[in-house]
């Protein structure tokens, strides 16, 4: 199996084999972070640019750590202080970064499809670190990696994705990845947060968290993005917690070994109680650790693909 894509834009365009290649490669990379010298020379002499148009700490730092453990040089561009403020377009910014002879742009943008536009206009690699409500492929890959590590497989698993499906790129990437690998995905949210036509992806929908928990081998609890609530229809926080919040009482009725994931940052007491977040079923911090291995694999593969094309 060869990796041929110079970019990683989303999981929708990937085959099952390509997703598995990333996961297998990530498994090999995980060991690097357990060494005393946490660094390999694979991307020595390459430059990765973090171009984040939206605030992010964990994803940006995770990519930065991943790139540095591969010996790449990392440059962080803070958009607030860059020439984007002076009106430079996305493609112009990208072309300037390319002209600096960088090799990979890791981009987060509030517009769906932004990574796609950049990738089409540049020869260097583009890795999507989240675009609008569209996709966040590395988050889904690390969720799936963690799930596979915990339960040994993905095929046939019942996975519930709970929360703000409508505004969530994490949900979309997870749906594509999980269904391609043969999991049964159920989306659980208040009706106003379930977008019309989402069933076309192959996922089921439900508005009853207790029903979903009965069957689930794992749940991925999304963050309620209250900062995106600009007067739009959004449930009231306490009401949401009552109806959809993951609590110990609710988990007690689920499968004993149910895996509880959350992409972070957690709103404790809104999406889940503190007991659940810190409890035995939670793999939230393992997700963070696995994120580095997954992002190392992605950076390595996209840079290899580009090289084989030359």
């Amino acid at each position, binding site marked *: 199996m060869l990796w041929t894509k110079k970019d990683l834009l989303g999981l929708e365009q990937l085959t099952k084999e390509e997703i598995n290649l990333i996961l297998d490669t990530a498994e*090999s990379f995980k060991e690097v972070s357990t060494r005393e010298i946490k660094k390999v020379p694979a991307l020595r002499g390459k430059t990765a640019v973090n171009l984040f148009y939206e605030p992010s700490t964990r994803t940006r730092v995770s990519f930065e750590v991943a790139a540095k453990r591969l010996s790449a040089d990392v440059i962080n561009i803070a958009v607030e202080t860059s020439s984007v403020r002076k009106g430079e377009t996305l493609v112009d910014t990208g072309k300037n970064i390319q002209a600096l002879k960088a090799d990979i742009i890791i981009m987060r943008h509030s517009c769906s499809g932004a990574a796609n536009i950049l990738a089409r206009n540049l020869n260097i690699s583009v890795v999507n670190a989240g675009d609008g409500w569209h996709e966040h492929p590395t988050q889904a890959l690390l969720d799936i990696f963690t799930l596979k590590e915990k339960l040994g497989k993905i095929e046939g698993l019942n996975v519930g994705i709970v929360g703000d499906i409508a505004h969530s790129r994490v949900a979309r990437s997870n749906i594509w990845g999980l269904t391609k690998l043969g999991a049964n995905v159920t989306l659980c949210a208040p009706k106003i947060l379930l977008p019309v036509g989402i069933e076309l992806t192959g996922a089921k929908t439900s508005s009853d968290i207790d029903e979903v928990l009965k069957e689930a081998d794992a749940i991925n609890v999304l963050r309620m993005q209250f900062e995106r609530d600009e007067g739009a229809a959004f449930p009231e926080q306490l009401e949401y917690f009552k109806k959809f919040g993951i609590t110990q009482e609710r988990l007690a009725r689920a499968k004993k070994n149910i895996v509880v994931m959350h992409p972070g940052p957690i709103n404790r007491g809104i999406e889940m109680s503190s007991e659940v977040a810190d409890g035995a079923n939670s793999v939230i911090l393992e997700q963070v650790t696995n994120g580095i291995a997954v992002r190392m694999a992605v950076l*390595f593969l996209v840079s290899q*693909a580009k090289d084989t094309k030359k």
Partner: protein
Amino acid sequence: MKEKVKILDQEGINRVITRIAHEIIEKNKGIYGLCIVGIRNRGVYIARRIAEAIKKIEGIDIPTGALDITLYRDDLALASGQPLVRKTEIDFDINDKNLVLVDDVLYTGRTIRAALDALIDFGRPKTIQLAVLVDRGHRELPIRADFVGKNIPTSNKESVEVRLQDADGIDEVLIAERE
């Protein structure tokens, strides 16, 4: 691929591994502080067999690990194919140990160069020694083996194929003319 010549069969490989085990013990004056690391893929199987042979002689398990050198290759940026990154598993401390690095075929020496770089990232062994099943010549770097199963003079047009029970279901070493 043209006709293949068998250089070693199962008995031959077993004898070679037993001899290398004895030589390792002799050179290190025992097995104190000894550990063995095989280079993926086939070096790992040979490393395990050397460790078994040492156990038969000395009665003690030698820590044995596996090393993947893909990320240290000097042709990573040039490689036409795409190497698969596999797992490195060294779950013991290599500091101040006498470490025996094991591979199946010693050829240009570039794999060993990469392996040495990788090992140094894991610690500072007291010594690193090299054991190979076959030395076929044609070195491109100043590297030599301490323990050699069989010296096989080859031409660059030939290829050396090592097949091992655990990986391929059969023990044999073949030389074949490349197309």
